[in-house]
């Protein structure tokens, strides 16, 4: 490569710090793999606790991603395209779960939607529905924490989209719905997919808000991260096995989508 010669060598101090930075990501992973009890792994991974938690984690993280898409896309569209009173406030609210400690988020959900909560109490009295300590509680907690990723990614993509494409589509007779379906969404698809992956990954790994709002009941609200937490106290090998499982699933999703959508 002729370009390589023209490039100046990077400063040594920078390289050293960069290696330390990469190490910070690599070492814990190596530590985990080093501790894996490979022989017992099949038995550990077919444990009831793991099967229950895996199923629950997959169902709740995917449901969360779906809800985030359903509610987050319209929110992102409005934030990107329309001036309305309180827009800055709404954007701040969307970003809040990103900076809020998840435990605090879970507590806030409990005060709002718990059986004695602001909204939860009338909801329980009229419909008998109890959100905390149920699978819907898990979905709600993970959506609360993960949806901001979808909203900010999609909003950014919509802002960067050249509005003239939508004008061109309108001048060709396309209804607003057709423009959205055939022009806008396909053009922001890479960002939309990226936002969905980030949302799913955050939901899949969610711990703090889930345990606070939905509790830790095996088979009902105990997702994989919660199962790891419990196993660390009682059965280290099981904790390592579940952790490995989560690493493998997350990496697989990342690699599979990178091929297709995140071409550099």
């Amino acid at each position, binding site marked *: 490569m002729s370009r390589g010669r023209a490039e100046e060598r990077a400063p040594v101090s920078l390289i050293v710090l960069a290696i330390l930075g990469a190490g910070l990501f690599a070492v814990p992973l190596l530590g985990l793999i080093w501790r894996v009890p490979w022989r017992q792994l099949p038995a550990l991974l077919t444990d009831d606790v793991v099967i229950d938690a895996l199923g629950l984690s997959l169902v709740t993280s995917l449901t969360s991603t779906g809800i985030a898409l359903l509610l987050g896309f319209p929110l992102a569209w409005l934030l990107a395209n329309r001036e309305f009173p309180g827009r800055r406030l709404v954007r701040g609210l969307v970003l809040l779960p990103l900076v809020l400690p998840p435990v605090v988020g879970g507590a806030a959900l409990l005060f709002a939607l718990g059986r004695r909560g602001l909204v939860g109490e009338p909801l329980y009295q009229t419909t008998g529905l109890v959100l905390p300590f149920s699978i819907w509680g898990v979905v709600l907690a993970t959506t609360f924490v993960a949806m901001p990723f979808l909203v900010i990614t999609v909003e950014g993509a919509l802002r960067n989209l050249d509005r*003239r494409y939508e*004008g061109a*589509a*309108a*001048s060709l*007779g*396309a*209804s607003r719905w057709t423009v959205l379906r055939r022009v806008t969404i*396909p053009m922001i698809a890479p960002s939309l997919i990226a936002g969905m992956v980030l949302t799913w990954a955050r939901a899949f790994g969610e711990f703090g808000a889930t345990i606070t709002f939905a509790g830790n009941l095996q088979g009902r609200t105990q997702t994989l991260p919660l199962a790891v937490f419990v196993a660390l106290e009682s059965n280290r090998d099981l904790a390592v096995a579940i952790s490995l499982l989560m690493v493998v699933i997350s990496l697989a999703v990342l690699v599979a989508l990178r091929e297709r959508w995140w071409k550099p």
Partner: protein
Amino acid sequence: MSREGLEARFALSRSSSFNLDVELTVPPSSTAALLGPNGAGKSTTVAVLAGLTGIDEGVIALNGEVVDDPTKDVFVPARERRVGVVFQDYMLFPNMDVVENVAFGLRSRGVDREQAVARASEWISLLGLDGAERKRPGELSGGQAQRVALARALAGDPDLLLLDEPLAALDVTIRSDLRRQLAEHLSVFPGPRLLITHDPTEAFLLADEVHIIEDGSITQSGSPDDIRLRPRTRFAADLAGANLLTGVARDGVVTFGEGTGRDGILRIVDHVLTGPVMLTIAPAAVSVHLERPEGSARNSWLTTIEQLEPIRDRVRIGLGPPLAITAEVTPEATESLGLETGLQVWVAVKATEIGVEGA
């Protein structure tokens, strides 16, 4: 009182400092050009006529049907207005291939897929795009992309064709070829055509009538010859009033008026170009002298002043055979040289001041 073509008379203000006030009529089967510098209001005019922006005052009618009239609360939005637009940079949908792009308008208006594809394919071959059907916009040359944009705009059988800087995105070396092709392709469309451009050459060669727009207002309308010979504003004189000459180039010499007995010639910098060419010479680059000029100007000849016309701070001088071109001098120079109609003068143009383009 249904009248054919486009009739537009409108005003709108974008801010306290920018007001657009335009009056345009374009009859069917004719091309009008809206020529003006950047920021003159051309893009806003496109948006207004396409139905992407409403007007504050006035009326816009297409084939006698009012599509925008704020006093009567009439506004036909872009998706219901039958205006075909070739957008600046073409705006082809990158996620669709050529057929899907061209068929998009038909599909949007409810034509079933098979029929839409069939009609799109007709336009595609009419515009010489055979073989490009399954390509994505990113795989097309600039010229192909322009024709796809034209096919897409025409496929919906519009009442008006708008072309917003259709040649600006193209490489300079192919622009003159594609301009000629565009002229041919425009004639397929029987309705009114409005070309929006900042390039006088484009306006003069493609349009039947040219409207000059400056600071949001139309300052002059007329045939290309009209504007070239009798520009009324500084801008028109500078851009529209440029001398356009067609001749034949060979070894750095361009010959004009072959067969008239008294051929004019001009020397140009480009010694490679051979064949028909078009030259542009800014009137201010043409100097007028009483004696034969010395120095670097190798193009000098004796001629007669046929016309003298003061325009604002300059005087335009129409010069006679062998080359009918226009010069511009200051009123002071006119006075001190004693220039007047019928006077014999020497004219000089530097080869470096002559713009050359293959025609």
